[in-house]
């Protein structure tokens, strides 16, 4: 357990130190800033569509770190050394999921909070948006880790990763953005269920991909 904490700590420190953490945040904020420019400053329209736009921006922000999640450590032999020390592929993937969420989830929530001001979201709508994103970010992190592990070592992994992630993220988007509408209370529960499922399968799917790439 102590070794897993050591691995997670290294990843998190590296993400924040390299500035890679803030790239999705800046992207997220700029996407949210562009939207009012594009559709005009109609407050009613922004209130109606803003939540959905912020959700789509969250999905796109998930794509940005894909090629840095697994590939560098795999190429550098870090994972080989962990395996030699008796740490399983699943453990490595689980640690990567936790460390990626720590570097991705909280900054994204902060950015969503800031961006919601640009859309004029407040009160209950803001609360629901942040709750839905908080529930979904572990699943988005899980999808990113799975896809990064699957495409590690391939040419053009970034573009392929985008193609793979978008369809897999559709359920999250439907229930996440759906929770923002008036009759959306059940949607949050569905979102939680999907999120749990994705988080639960990530260590095994990504672990299998890591062990396959070694052969």
């Amino acid at each position, binding site marked *: 357990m102590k070794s897993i904490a050591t*691995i997670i700590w290294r990843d998190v420190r590296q993400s924040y130190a*390299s500035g890679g953490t803030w790239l999705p945040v800046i992207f997220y904020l700029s996407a949210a800033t562009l939207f009012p420019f594009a559709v005009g400053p109609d407050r009613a329209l922004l209130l109606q569509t803003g939540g959905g736009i912020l959700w789509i921006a969250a999905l796109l922000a998930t794509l940005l770190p894909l090629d840095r999640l697994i590939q560098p450590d795999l190429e*550098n032999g870090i994972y*080989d*050394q962990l395996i*030699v020390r008796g740490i399983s592929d699943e453990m490595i993937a689980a640690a990567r999921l936790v460390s990626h969420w720590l570097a991705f989830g909280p900054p994204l929530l902060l950015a969503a909070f800031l961006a919601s001001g640009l859309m004029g979201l407040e009160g209950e709508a803001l609360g629901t948006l942040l709750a839905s994103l908080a529930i979904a970010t572990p699943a988005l992190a899980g999808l990113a880790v799975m896809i990064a592990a699957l495409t590690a070592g391939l040419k053009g992994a970034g573009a392929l990763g985008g193609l793979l992630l978008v369809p897999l993220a559709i359920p999250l988007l439907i229930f996440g953005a759906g929770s923002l509408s008036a009759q959306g209370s059940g949607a949050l529960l569905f979102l939680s269920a999907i999120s749990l499922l994705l988080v639960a399968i990530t260590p095994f799917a990504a672990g299998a991909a890591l062990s396959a790439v070694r052969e």
Partner: protein
Amino acid sequence: MDKGQSTGSSERLLAEAISCVRGERLLFRNLAFALEAGQAGLVTGPNGVGKSSLLRLVAGLLQPSAGSYIAPETKALCDDRLALDEHLPLEQTLGFWARLDGKGPADVDDAMTRAGLGHLTEIPVRYFSTGQRQRARLARTYLTGARLWLLDEPANGLDTVSVDQLGRALQQHLDDGGIILAASHIPLPIAFNFTLKLEQLEELEACL
């Protein structure tokens, strides 16, 4: 004894009739060898014959396609991959492995000194030369405290002084009851208990 599994607490390395197929090519078959505590084995042969694969197999990174082996629980692999964070100073990035291996800062210092890197502890690894990178790999290996050292071309890029230094570290490990399995083209200054000569298996390849 399961196929391809090390049974853990063994004090020696024992391989029984192991074969390895990679990319539909038979690299070697029916390899058998044994190394007791304090013994060293050398693997030789032309490029691409499967020396690195043999070391990776014993390290647990590859599965043998047939046969089985038992190995000590603690293993250290030194291959061509650096496995160090290039933007961090040597001492810090070795510190990550030290924490995983249950070692302290004093052990990191000791490993760096033994690898002849005592003067580079504060330098980020990306500025290292080829030989210094190789010594950093060796320092990471010394640091593990593992019983079995698997060394893939450990003297690559080293100058003569560093090769002597490497020889002293290897001898020290053997004297402490460690085991070494090394693949090297450059003669290493320790006495090996056996030399395992791998050869191309061209006729066999045709039969497959």
